[in-house]
């Protein structure tokens, strides 16, 4: 976080949602930054504001509903002043996102090939239909879907949960974005599949030089994947720093509680989640 | 009778109840839809109840000088015939007011018959299941294969057009609406553990239906009845318009519109007055019905 300016820096970010009784502050003065190609974990319980941060970074907080404050600087641009069309051009191209529930993330009445192909279609208008299809096939193979030639014309309900999340990832990384935000990407999956998906995202990001922000409630997952971590509670960052420091020597009472809630805490061998790295 | 078993009922009951911090009247007071609807309904009902007191003339009285008399606000018009006179020299205002009586009468009779028959059959089918259910639901399915008006036409064809046939045909066409609602709700409640428990404890089945089933189906039945009243008013007017319902010279709105159709050029108000009357009634009932549905089923409110 020294030397060259970071890929993304967030300064004193606030997100407010209007309600009947006035504004509700979901994110209250959050600051962090991430350098190109690195991996950052954002941890917290549901309602801690971690997902709101992810959505704010994507410009997905509905403009009519949420009020943003502070600064978000991405690749040297001030994101909070971007026009709608500038946002559109950025999303899916330079910044991409993977969501929690792949079944709900994919349009049930659209073939998965078309859903991935959309990314090319709206960001690379010069590509022909045939080129797009070829690119989609290649992507499906890259994310480890066997028999991609047949699967490309499948509908989401015809795939397993793990395969659907692979499809979502394929669409997200299609244009080699410099930042990928993953919001609880493995929570809806079987334990055995969780590790594979995490592994896949890590590998792809490393290959492409994509920075990854992993938003999760699961400290285990974050400690496996990330170098740095931000711990959030009630919209505020309560702890931040390198994963090892935070885990070995939690300063904040909340982090200690999160740590205690981990399965297998206290007995180094019991490990139900992903393999420790 | 475990706590768990009673939860569904409890939540079902408290969902609207929790909302009822806002009572029915104060909800109504806040709803433009509900108030407008109620106002229009009361207007029509008042016309129907006090028709004889309101009308200046007998609806069948024919006066030669009144033929095609203009409305009060048109050139040459007077307050003698507020809405003018029709092709036979009858007072359009008086006829329109009397029409309210016919419409309200038919609507109340038809919906009451359909509601009672439909609810009883629906409760029987849902509560006892088995062959009773199969028999009743087959009849419902079968009837669904007929478009609504076609069914009425068969009645007209067989029994000959007229008031009694009209009432029978419409009641027969509508009972299935009530039967379906009551059946599905009864089935849901019948499956609950505590109803089973009540049965094993020897509580009479009639009592179970009265204390558990009826209160739960009441809101849905009420909403359906309200909306069906609008449907009956429209259907009565349509069939009477075709000459298959209420017969002239009775002043039904449908009959008036049918008669006035040939004299649109000479006096459009023969058609416009009963037309507006039909609209006031059905818009009023539909608005109020919408309000009732929102009130009883908060899940739909966000729409």
């Amino acid at each position, binding site marked *: 976080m020294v030397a060259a300016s970071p890929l993304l820096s967030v300064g004193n970010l606030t997100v407010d949602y209007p309600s009947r009784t006035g504004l509700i502050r979901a994110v209250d003065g959050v600051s962090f930054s991430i350098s190109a190609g690195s991996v950052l974990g954002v941890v917290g319980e549901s309602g801690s504001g971690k997902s709101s941060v992810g959505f704010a970074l994507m410009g997905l907080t509905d403009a009519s509903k949420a009020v943003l404050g502070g600064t978000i600087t991405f690749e040297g641009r001030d994101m909070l002043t971007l026009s709608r069309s500038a946002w559109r051009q950025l999303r*899916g191209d330079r910044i991409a996102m993977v969501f929690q529930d792949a079944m709900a993330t994919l349009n049930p009445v659209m073939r998965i090939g078309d859903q991935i192909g959309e990314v090319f279609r709206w960001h690379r208008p010069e590509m022909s239909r045939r080129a797009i299809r070829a690119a989609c096939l290649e992507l499906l193979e890259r994310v480890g879907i066997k028999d991609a030639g047949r699967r490309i014309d499948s509908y989401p309900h015809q795939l397993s949960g793990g395969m659907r999340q692979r499809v979502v990832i394929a669409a997200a990384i299609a244009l080699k974005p410099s930042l990928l935000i993953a919001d609880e990407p493995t929570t809806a999956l079987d334990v055995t599949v969780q590790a594979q998906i995490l592994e896949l995202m890590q590998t792809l990001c490393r290959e492409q030089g994509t920075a990854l922000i992993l938003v999760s409630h699961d400290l285990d997952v974050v400690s496996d994947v990330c170098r740095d971590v931000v711990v959030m509670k009630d919209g505020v960052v309560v702890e931040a720093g390198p994963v090892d420091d935070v885990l070995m020597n939690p300063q904040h009472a909340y982090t200690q509680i999160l740590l205690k809630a981990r399965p297998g805490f206290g007995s180094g061998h019991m490990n139900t989640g992903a393999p420790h790295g | 009778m475990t706590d768990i078993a009673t939860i569904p009922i409890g939540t079902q009951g408290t969902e609207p109840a929790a909302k009822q911090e806002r009572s029915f009247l104060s909800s109504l007071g806040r709803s433009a839809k509900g108030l407008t609807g109620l106002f229009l309904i009361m207007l029509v009902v008042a016309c129907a109840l006090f028709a004889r007191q309101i009308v200046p003339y007998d609806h069948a009285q024919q006066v030669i000088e009144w033929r095609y008399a203009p409305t009060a606000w048109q050139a040459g018009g007077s307050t003698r015939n507020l809405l003018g006179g029709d092709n036979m020299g009858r007072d359009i205002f008086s006829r329109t007011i009397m029409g309210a009586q016919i419409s309200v009468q038919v609507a109340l009779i038809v919906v009451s018959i359909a509601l009672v028959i439909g609810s009883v059959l629906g409760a029987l089918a849902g509560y006892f299941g088995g062959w009773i259910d199969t028999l009743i639901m087959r009849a419902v399915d079968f009837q669904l294969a007929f478009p609504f008006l076609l069914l009425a036409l068969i009645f007209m*064809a067989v029994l000959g057009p007229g008031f009694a046939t009209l009432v029978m045909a419409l009641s027969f066409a509508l009972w299935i609406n009530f039967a379906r609602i009551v059946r599905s709700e009864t089935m849901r409640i019948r499956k609950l553990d505590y109803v089973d428990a009540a049965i094993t404890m020897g509580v009479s089945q009639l009592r179970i239906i009265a204390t558990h089933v009826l209160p739960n189906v009441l809101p849905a039945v009420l909403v359906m009845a309200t909306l069906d009243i*609008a449907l009956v008013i*429209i259907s009565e007017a349509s069939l009477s318009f075709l000459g*298959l319902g209420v017969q002239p010279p009775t002043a039904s709105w449908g009959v008036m519109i049918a008669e006035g159709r040939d004299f649109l050029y000479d006096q459009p108000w023969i058609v*416009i007055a009963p037309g507006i009357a039909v609209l006031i009634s059905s818009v009023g009932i539909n608005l109020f019905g919408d309000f009732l549905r929102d009130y009883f089923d908060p899940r739909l409110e966000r729409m």
Partner: protein
Amino acid sequence: MLKLLVSRFFYACVIILGVVLVVSSLVKLVPGDPVDVIAAGNPGMSVADMDRLRERMGLTRSIPEQFASYLGHAVQGDMGTSIRQGVPVTKLIAERLPATAELAFWALVLAFIFAIPLGIATALKRGSWLDYTGTFIAVLGVSTPGFLLAVLMILWFSIELRWLPASGYRGSALLAVGKAVVEGKFSVFWNAFRYFILPAISLAFVLIAVNARVIRSAMLEVLQQDFITFATAKGVPRLRIVLRHALRNALLPVVTLAGLQMGALLSGTVVIETVFAWPGIGRLAVDSIHVRDYPIIQAVVLVSAVLFIVLNLTVDILYRFIDPRVRDD
């Protein structure tokens, strides 16, 4: 899929058989028989003449026998002879069915042309004046009887403005499309089509109102789904998201409703055809009831019920092709 089709087909057949049974036994309940009706119109007929006629019409046979014979003939396309006109009923219906079918077709086209944009717009601009207008139209739509709208439109567009004909039918507009293209004259199409406009709007108004509401609430629900957010995250333009991702999903409930709406259309044609002196089967039915021409009534009811069932079956199958999730079940 095939199994489902076969079972649905058999179910449809049972229903149709039931329709024939119920309608013909109801007609048997009528005091007096067709011969009495004919005799009432021909004072010169003697009792012996009437008996001979009964013999010839098969009215002396037992009721099950008559039923079986009617069914047997109906399957072969013979639905008896009109008492009043002395013409085969099948011929009368065949002459008039196309006019009814095309009227219903244009009404459906109108319904969707207006309902889809209205439903989308009111969903996107929720709470705006446009949305309130939509609500108003919806209430008005379900509250206005078709015949009233028809008469009021005749009053305004035909009598006041003299824009459109008040009644009548000048042949198929669909067939005229081809002719108009060949001859290069729009007027050929317009001359037929303008007779369709008022009756088709009268029929379509309620469908526009209902469908726009259904599309609106379905759109509101779909627009909150994660896959809409994901499409936005992919950088797909908003308009494209609304039309491609949201609308396709929001139209599914409308398709399920379409089958039932066919019934409303069939019922509607009965009234609307009478208003506009339209030579379709609806008006044929009403006219026949007035003169108690039972074979025609029986046939119209039968044909309508069969149409309704077949259309519902079609919609059901169509739905399976539109929604891939149901298709695979």
